[in-house]
């Protein structure tokens, strides 16, 4: 018996040709929950960060999703957007998740961006290291811009002159993504793109 990961309703199973052939994608959400997320596909371009592709709007359903995923630590929810993330990231050659501070990671018991990628079966490189435990969401724009570097390169990390794609859950002011892009470009990356699940 399969239930919707979010509302726990039992999923209706209709016999389909795809199902018969065994090529049907595994469903994680019911139709109602699935329709509550608003696909946006916003693509913004810039200098330091060459482009940012944000998949969804930050609506009420998405806010609740992240509350359950990050705050209630429901790792199982990493599966919800696995298919969507995979289709955007499968062609990328070097995927770099935004890292968590080790203390923060132990507190949450998992690194939420890495889990999203793991569920999406997207291979990734751990090239960056978070320097502080400060939380972006608690800062004003001015405070964010005045901050010391958030990331450093991991020891022994080698950056090649290729295109890197950084992945984060949310794109708000862009401080996090820009700082990560800066570190990668400084070290010799040719191009840095970003993919985020939501645009706030």
């Amino acid at each position, binding site marked *: 018996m399969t239930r919707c990961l979010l509302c726990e309703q039992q999923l209706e199973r209709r016999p389909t040709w795809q199902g018969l052939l065994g090529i049907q994608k595994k469903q994680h959400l019911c139709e109602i929950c699935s329709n509550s997320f608003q696909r946006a596909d916003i693509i913004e371009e810039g200098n330091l960060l060459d482009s940012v592709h944000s998949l969804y709007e930050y609506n009420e359903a998405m806010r609740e999703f992240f509350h359950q995923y990050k705050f209630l630590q429901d*790792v199982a929810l990493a599966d919800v957007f696995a298919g969507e993330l995979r289709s955007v990231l499968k062609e990328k050659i070097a995927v770099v998740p935004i890292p968590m501070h080790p203390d923060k990671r*132990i507190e949450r018991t*998992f690194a939420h961006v890495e889990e999203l990628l793991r569920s999406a079966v997207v291979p990734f490189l751990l090239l960056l290291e978070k320097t502080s435990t400060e939380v972006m969401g608690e800062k004003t724009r001015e405070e964010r811009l005045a901050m010391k570097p958030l990331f450093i390169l991991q020891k022994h990390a080698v950056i090649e002159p290729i295109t890197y794609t950084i992945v984060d859950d949310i794109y708000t002011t862009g401080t996090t993504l820009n700082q990560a892009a800066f570190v990668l470009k400084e070290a010799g990356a040719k191009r840095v793109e970003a993919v985020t699940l939501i645009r706030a």
Partner: protein
Amino acid sequence: MGQPFHTAVRDFLDGRIWLRRHTPFPKDIIDRHIQEGFIQTIPGIQTNTTVLNQTHHTCNRCENNDPTRFTTFHCAKCEGTCTYCRKCLKMGRISSCTELILWRGEPVSFSIQHALAWQGTLTSSQQQAADDMIDSTNKGRSHLIHAVCGSGKTEMLFPPIHELLLAGKRVCLAAPRVDVILELEPRLKAAFPETSIEALYGGTELTKQAAQLVLATTHQLYRFRHTFDAVFVDEADAFPYTADQTLRQAVQKAAKPGTPVHYVTATPSEELLSTMKKTGSISTINRRYHGYPLPVPRYETLWNYEKQIKKGKLPQKLIVWTSARLKKREPFLLFFHHIGLMEQALPLLQALDGRIRSVHAAHPDRKEHVQALRNEQLPGLLTTTILERGITIPNIQVAVVGAEQKIFNKGALIQIGGRVGRSVNFPAGDFVLFHNGITYAMDDAKREIERLNEGGIGK
């Protein structure tokens, strides 16, 4: 002082099963109590390996053991494979590396001074049911009060609860729905003014007191273990209690072993009736406290109502019925099986009176709208089955739109009809089932109501 432990810690923890890292006390105080043996710790998830080398998990808080409701992942905290329970996740995640704590020191001793301030008197059949329940409690046997809607079920519970409180016992009155708890809280507080009472439902603030009488949604009972000397379950047939095995286990777990779990409902399930016949005892009340019969549903055809409403047209019969209520200034409830259909019908009904509103489980103004209907600020409400039980509004008139829908089973229809004619000043009222075909459930509900009115006992 003189106590080797903090009384505040004891008062909070005694009877509860709690997350070690989420108590309202500083960590070092909890740690010291654990070292000195006042608090026992147990792992959050019990994992056993079967002979076939399959792992089997049980959540030590909610006792969920359904393998589909667990998720296993690589945990950064314990640096290993960790499993958590998704069933009770919203109360704070329980995983293999989290610890639960239980009070093992001297228990709280409860007061034996309790006044019963309720001024009314029970009818002889109510008194009989209350006496039967006291008798069952003394024998440690479960008891079911099967009493029609509007027979004064809550009042019948006052004597058995009072009896237990006077003996210094701890009592829980549980119900599957928040609405029922919200309605019970002021009534119980008024009836037992000297008793420490706490109401627990999703979103209530944590209090540190050890309440002797706990009102709680059945969900909240996940957080108690072997706590109460008796648990009373009101509206025992309501969703999700009947549908959810772990909720029923939670109620059993909250009661001390060997103490009774009592049930009160107008529409017991066949399963509950047969269990109680075998292992417990039953009192039946088939008259309302005011002595008037239950309203019998009448059928009205409403062909293709879904299609019409979806096209933006309100069926003529609904216009006539609603207009009549508005003209006579009678408050009304229109029950719908589906939120989407209800929201489509709302503007069509608002064309008759702009003050009409709708409510459903997740509606932000749900409490306010119901209160406005009570205060006569609204002429009527459209609702899903959330208002099928627990609400009393004098002279309310009720219509079900689409009574043939599966969600309106026999029990639901009896409960919905039970909203009508509850007040002694307005002991009758309209109970109409608009349908697109008559179902067995409709006939069963009607027959049962007629049988109860004839004085027969529910099957």
